[in-house]
């Protein structure tokens, strides 16, 4: 369940951004997650939900974008798309594959508000 630590690292980046840019809260958080990043997206969603209350992330929506990976096929000597580390080469069927992308885990963008969330009485 390292997604809890990941969620804390995300909050750290958000707090740093708030110190630099100044905002009261995040309304939408966009993460880029490579499919080889070792992240279970639903676990991360759960961890963010659990972490958010009382922080700048309270009430934010999570936009968790999973991206495919590329590997270098040693037999084909060419880059090929893969989705897991166990995939075979879609061209030659071999499994001498070296992933070259897909391990990224980045905070891409924040949608932020300068005002705190309205009190519950104002929401419908």
């Amino acid at each position: 369940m390292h997604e809890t630590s990941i969620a804390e690292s995300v909050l750290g980046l958000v707090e740093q951004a708030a110190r630099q840019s100044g905002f009261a809260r995040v309304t939408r958080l966009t993460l880029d997650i490579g499919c080889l990043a070792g992240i279970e997206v639903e676990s991360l969603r759960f961890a963010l939900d659990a972490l958010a209350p009382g922080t700048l992330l309270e009430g934010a929506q999570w936009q968790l974008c999973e991206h495919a990976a590329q590997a270098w096929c040693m037999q084909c000597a060419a880059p090929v798309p893969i989705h897991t580390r166990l995939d075979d080469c879609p061209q030659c069927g071999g499994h001498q594959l070296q992933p070259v992308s897909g391990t990224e885990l980045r905070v891409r963008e924040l949608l932020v508000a300068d005002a705190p969330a309205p009190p519950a009485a104002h929401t419908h």
Partner: protein
Amino acid sequence: MCTICGCNGDDGHGLRLYPAGAHAVPAAAPWAPAGAAGVLRHAGGDLHYGAGPAGVSVPGLSQTRAIRIEQDVLGANNRVAERNREHFSAERILSFNLVSSPGSGKTTLLCATLQRLREREPATKLAVIEGDQQTSHDADRIRATGVPAIQVNTGKGCHLDAEMVARANAGLPMAGGGILFIENVGNLVCPAMWDLGEAAKVAILSVTEGEDKPLKYPDMFAAAQVMLLNKVDLLPYVSFDVERCIANARRVNPRILVMQVSATVGTGLDEWVGWLLHAYDHVSGRPHSHAGHAAAGPAHR
């Protein structure tokens, strides 16, 4: 009444708001920005909202804007890991991050490794950082071999991170170089993601586990440079297909180096310890021969 925020302004501030955009700042404004754009602080410390881009703040309607961050979530850990790596390199410390599931025999193998290293090279400094959620049992076992060890209890944490290693390393007597073993929390999932600054991750898998573990936990076996297949003395008693296990490991990591060992009866320990010392030859810069080495150490990479 404050014409921006609509407060009653009983401190008589009127328009004395720290402005954003259209509103001018009085030269000697007795209030200061609260640190967040569009959030203003009056002389009495009250916070005012409504100085954002739209210049207004309406309950229920928030002013939003997008900020592009494009930052690696693990960037903070990776920066500390890189600092560790530079420190290890400058001090000629060769460091390994030992990872496995609980019960693979990591600590027993480490104790046997330390004893062999001591016998072969009594002058080489050795040290261990032990990661576990609780107890100092493992560090106690290491210290019983005469090698200094620091226990890191991660509490609820499922892995060591670079900062923990930096702090623990500062308490170990490794001036002048040596070999540092970092025994991670027993877990084949989470430690794969955290770079500690080590020269190589060494995954330990025992023959009492399944030969399909490299396929079940591919991230770890992809991140490791070495796989030690431990407890091979038990092979006659378990149904474990060594060749298939190695093929599975190579499937997720074509370049992984595999050695078969038994910590309890000593099988393969000469090869493993020879590999470690060869890698240390490179890190410490001492002259050595490459004759008789089955595989290159991490320093060759």
